[in-house]
């Protein structure tokens, strides 16, 4: 098992290297020079050159790339162009609010999705199943932005059921997180349920289910003892793959509800062309994704007895 994990980690290195290349190309080669935008109109050439030197943008590209690699390996991403804060510090501070929204929303959303798909498996072909399919396809067809705007306007602004926006650390922050969390669940439920349903129905048609019925098991026992355990393998995979993306939270939700997380931070950075911040967030996102993939494979090995042999 340990050698398997080590092998997977070594396999991930080229991918991470690729990520550094892509982000570098996007920001330093295609993106070019953010200095003009930073100094504003009417700045003298001297000023521009000075800033450029300060940011290291006057050096040849290969040197800039090695500098970037050094930043990554030391987890020191320099300072934000816009706020002059240390980026590592900003990310550390932003992670808490992001996770406080993302983790509970993700958790409840996934559980709800699994419960609904189990019910669908029980009532396959009946009204509940059809209704679920219709609702999830319809739900997936509405823009995320429409959910957020309508949710915030009708549930917070008009009815006053929830605070409009804001964030506070600790338990006092809970009321602020309910509505964005709810919207998160609704947005993700459509595609989750559709996926889980396909998985469940796929399993229900397997031969071993027929065997289980032939033993005289009732449908609940077949579903919970036999089907669920098999269905959990693809379900876990999908969920674990989604986990790394939790750290950026939802860019839009955080922005709309003024949650000072990494999502808001990314949007602010994009609005102010704050390249180092976006670069850092993007790279850490990719790092977590690659790590998440390794965790997925390990979960796989734990949930599926067939994997252990390989």
């Amino acid at each position: 098992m340990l050698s398997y994990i080590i092998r997977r980690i070594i396999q991930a290195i080229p991918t991470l290297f690729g990520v550094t290349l892509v982000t570098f190309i996007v920001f330093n080669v295609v993106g070019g020079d953010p200095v003009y935008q930073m100094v504003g109109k009417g700045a003298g050439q001297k000023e521009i050159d000075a800033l450029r030197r300060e940011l290291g943008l006057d050096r040849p590209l290969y040197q800039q790339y090695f500098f970037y690699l050094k930043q990554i390996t030391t987890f020191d991403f320099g300072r934000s162009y816009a706020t002059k804060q240390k980026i590592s510090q900003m990310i550390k501070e932003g992670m808490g609010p992001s996770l406080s929204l993302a983790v509970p929303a993700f958790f409840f959303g996934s559980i709800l999705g699994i419960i609904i798909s189990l019910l669908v498996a029980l009532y396959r072909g009946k009204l509940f199943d059809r209704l679920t399919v219709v609702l999830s396809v319809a739900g997936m067809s509405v823009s995320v932005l429409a959910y957020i705007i309508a949710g915030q306007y009708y549930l917070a602004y008009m009815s006053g059921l929830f605070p409009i926006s804001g964030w506070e650390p600790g338990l006092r922050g809970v009321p602020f997180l309910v509505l964005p969390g709810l919207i998160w669940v609704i947005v993700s439920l459509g595609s989750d349920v559709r996926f889980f349903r396909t998985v469940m129905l796929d399993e229900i048609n397997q031969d071993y289910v027929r065997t289980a019925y032939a033993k005289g098991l009732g449908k609940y026992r077949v579903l919970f003892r036999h089907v669920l355990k098999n269905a959990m393998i693809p379900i876990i995979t999908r969920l674990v793959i989604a986990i790394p993306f939790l750290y950026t939270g939802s860019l839009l939700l955080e922005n709309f509800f003024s949650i000072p997380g990494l999502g808001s931070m990314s949007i602010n950075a994009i609005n102010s062309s704050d390249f180092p911040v976006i670069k850092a967030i993007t790279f850490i996102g990719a790092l977590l994704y690659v790590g998440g993939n390794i965790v997925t494979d390990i979960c796989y090995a734990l949930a599926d007895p067939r994997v252990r042999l390989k």
Partner: protein
Amino acid sequence: MRKSKSLTQKALTELGRDKLAMISFAIIAAYILIALLIQTNLLNLPIHDTVGESYEKPSWAHILGTDIFGRDVFIRVIYGVKISMSIGFITTLIAVPIGIVLGALAGFFGGRIDDFIVWIYSTFSSIPYLLLLLALALVLGKGIFSVYIALGVTSWVGICRVVRGEFIKYRERDYVTAAHALGAGPLRIIFRHILPNVLPLIFINASLLFVSAIKAEVILSYIGVGVQGKPSWGNMISDAKLELVGRGVYWQFLGATCAMFIIVLAFNIFSDALRDSFDPRISNKTKER
């Protein structure tokens, strides 16, 4: 025994019988027609004309009311069809060929080429999609052209992965070996013998890609790196953030959301039906049961 039809024919007959899928297909065709009419100036929409007061409520004259400058919202929503369809279309046009070519090369030749292409796409799929998309749209400069490129460059991965998987599967088939033995070159085998079998899957994935491009435009427009100066659905939905609060102006939001909902729903239903009719596993199952 009745005469057996080809798999594609059978699938298409099945699809033709599916009423919901046919309605969806009609909706998609109607949207495409509107987009083409606007694009070719056969339908000239007065999107910049002031027709009334600022923020007039929906009425018989203007069924979706007017916007801040007194322009007819319904006309602008219709114009949005062209923007959305062009974004969906051009994104697909960029991403699908990249995906097919890379996927086919990787799956067919294997070895080093495969390793290299898998490396490229696993790199792209590791980067948080929305961040990469926003960053690309930002560095390419604002405007619809950047939206096309940014979406195209970020969305080929799914198709590439599917095509590669299928090519690996078909590479080992007997008829492909037979074609090799008859001296067919790799290009001929790829395009003549394997690709036609993969086309239904590509088609399904392309229509999903189309949908996600239309949805992504809204987010890009909200962040401010989207379509500029044109009435796109994304711009109209984003404006609602300011219009709803205090003024209660819902019509622009409603019009754009509904117009988008209908086409995305049609695409979702259609690609589902397409998948069902082409998936031999599913169709066998329904017959068995």
